[in-house]
């Protein structure tokens, strides 16, 4: 046997820098040749073009690849993707839960997947009945009488909510100027308020990681239109003073908006309307398991009180003795709606998936979802609390917050932990968020993970913490090593972004 080839210590590296069957993939522009094409069309003879001076003389610069080359290119790239169907995806405040296959099967029924928003309502009565039933489930779970389903995602739901608030306050003749946002909020909250024309101010959190009620009371005046709060908040803690908060907000004449990003922790346990909240959005793609990101569009319905309901956006569906009708225009029934958020009626495919999820779980199943999500997060908390510092004591809700204070003396930072986790085979948690905790690591396992997976994750985290000693620290600071690319220079990427590829010169910083 040839010793050189079987030796453990010596590897013959691939000339193309491939690893195993993991192919190093060039940019699509760097492959093929411009005279190649996926389709083979015959030359047109006997005809001349009439472009005259408009005729392009230079190269158009499109890549030229055959069909199999294209298929392989994108399939190879897709293998560099990480997905919820591959493993644990513990991004805090993102609720990356399993997307049940039943939902997918139902959403692909031709009666739902082959309809068009311009079809006459009489031909889509079933789809409209589904939307109405989804409304009933979501209003039952939130305790609000009205829900607007059309917003396309969480941030658009926020914008919808603030536009409703603005419409209502302007109608009262008291438009107001300011929106107060908890300092632990998602960045979308202040961005939404600003986009809606309000000045934003940040409400500080107290030492326990919840909203500082006294500070809020001091900030509330007759210029504050709304307060935006997430409950449970992004520290994974339930805002226990929510009733005092809503009282204070209402006394000042403002409205309380709730960001529903973390609804998964309390669904079936408490109705947000009972907490004094006036309006909130839900993320169907978080709490109700419709796919995130590349798997499908988001969906951010907005639930609200009867006081705000007249200002809800169009369209909405109504049920009468002769069937379901859709109200699409001002004047049909309402003069007070602020109008539409978007074209068409909302993310129909997501409505089907969400309703499938709701019906298949039932009320008791949904309550267990919240309980198991909280249990899983606390299981991780218990497994890690001797190895990682945690800024706030006590149990958490659906996500657990650690930081890097205990690792700092050894020279290890949150970013190193995240990169080292990749080498351990785990997608990192949310890092450096919420902003109020230095070196934050926010872990949300969701209810769909097993004890075995949670144990493996805890073991990987403990392994990293245990290696934060002087002889091992360099290895952790160099992580990841088992990935197609090593640690990327994020600073250089942000300061000198390469946003387009140019012919001849290749990537160009423009």
């Amino acid at each position, binding site marked *: 046997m040839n010793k050189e080839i079987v030796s453990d210590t010596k590897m013959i590296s691939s000339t193309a820098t491939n690893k195993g069957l993991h192919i190093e993939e060039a940019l699509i522009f760097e492959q093929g040749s411009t005279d190649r094409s996926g389709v083979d069309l015959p030359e047109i003879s006997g005809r001349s073009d009439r472009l005259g001076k408009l005729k392009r003389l230079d190269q158009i610069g499109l890549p030229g690849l055959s069909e199999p080359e294209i298929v392989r290119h994108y399939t190879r790239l897709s293998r560099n993707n990480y997905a919820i169907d591959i493993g644990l995806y513990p991004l805090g405040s993102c609720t990356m839960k399993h997307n049940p296959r039943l939902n997918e099967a139902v959403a692909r029924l031709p009666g739902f997947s082959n309809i068009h928003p311009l079809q006459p309502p009489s031909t889509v009565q079933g789809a409209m009945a589904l939307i109405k039933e989804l409304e009933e489930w979501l209003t039952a779970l939130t305790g609000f009488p009205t829900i607007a389903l059309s917003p396309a995602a969480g941030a658009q739901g926020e914008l919808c909510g603030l536009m409703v608030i603005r419409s209502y306050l302007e109608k009262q003749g008291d438009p107001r100027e300011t929106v107060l946002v908890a300092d632990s909020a998602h*960045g979308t909250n202040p961005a939404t308020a600003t986009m809606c024309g309000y000045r934003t101010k940040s409400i500080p959190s107290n030492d326990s990681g919840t909203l500082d009620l006294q500070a809020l009371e001091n900030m509330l005046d007759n210029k504050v239109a709304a307060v935006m709060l997430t409950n449970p908040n992004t520290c994974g803690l339930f805002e226990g003073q929510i009733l005092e908060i809503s009282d204070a907000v209402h006394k000042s004449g403002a409205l309380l908006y709730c960001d529903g990003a973390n609804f998964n922790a309390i669904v079936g346990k408490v109705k947000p309307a009972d907490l004094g909240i006036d309006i909130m959005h839900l993320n169907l793609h978080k709490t109700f398991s419709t796919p995130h990101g590349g798997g499908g569009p988001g969906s951010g319905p907005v639930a609200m009180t009867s006081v705000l309901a007249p200002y809800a956006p169009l369209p909405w569906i109504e049920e009468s003795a002769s069937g379901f009708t859709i109200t699409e225009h001002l004047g049909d029934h309402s003069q007070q709606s602020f109008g539409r958020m978007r074209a068409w009626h909302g993310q129909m495919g997501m409505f089907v998936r969400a309703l499938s999820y709701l019906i298949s779980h039932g009320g008791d199943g949904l309550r267990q979802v919240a309980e198991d999500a909280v249990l899983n997060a606390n299981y991780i908390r218990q497994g890690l609390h001797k190895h990682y510092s945690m800024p706030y004591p006590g149990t958490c809700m659906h996500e657990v917050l650690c930081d890097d204070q205990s690792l700092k003396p050894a020279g290890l930072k949150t970013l190193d932990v995240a990169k080292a986790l990749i080498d351990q085979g785990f997608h990192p948690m949310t890092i450096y*968020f919420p*902003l109020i905790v*230095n070196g934050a690591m926010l872990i949300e396992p969701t209810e769909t993970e097993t004890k075995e997976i949670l144990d493996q994750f805890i073991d990987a985290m403990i392994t990293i913490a245990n290696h934060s000693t002087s002889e091992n620290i360099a290895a952790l600071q160099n992580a990841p090593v088992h990935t197609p690319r090593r640690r990327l220079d994020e*600073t250089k990427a*942000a*300061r000198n972004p390469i946003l387009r590829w140019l012919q001849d010169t290749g990537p160009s910083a423009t």
Partner: protein
Amino acid sequence: MRKAKYTKDHEWVRLEEGGEKTNAIGIVGITDFAQEQLGDIVFVELPEVGITVQKGDEAATIESVKAASEFFTPVSGKVININNTIIDDPGLINSDPREVGWFFSLELADPSELESLMDEAAYESFVTSLS
């Protein structure tokens, strides 16, 4: 160099050399602790020259590889000059937040505002209390 005063939001302000009391010019920036916490800064947006800002107003935006943050002006006044070099090279805020990495200067509306800010010793002990 004049002594700087500090805020709990980790901004500093110091009077420009030779500035008259009646027309005091303040220079503002972020502290070394702030740049350390932010990590590598990749973008900064400064206020327009000529605008008037109130103490505590969000007067600039800082983006680092970790997060986007607001810069709250430690004193009130009219912005008279901005540091264009940090717009071109935001890394200067990381390497020298106290001198080269200053943000903007302003004509103080009320120099007595400085009295409510922390001096260097008080700020140092405030930072120590955070860790």
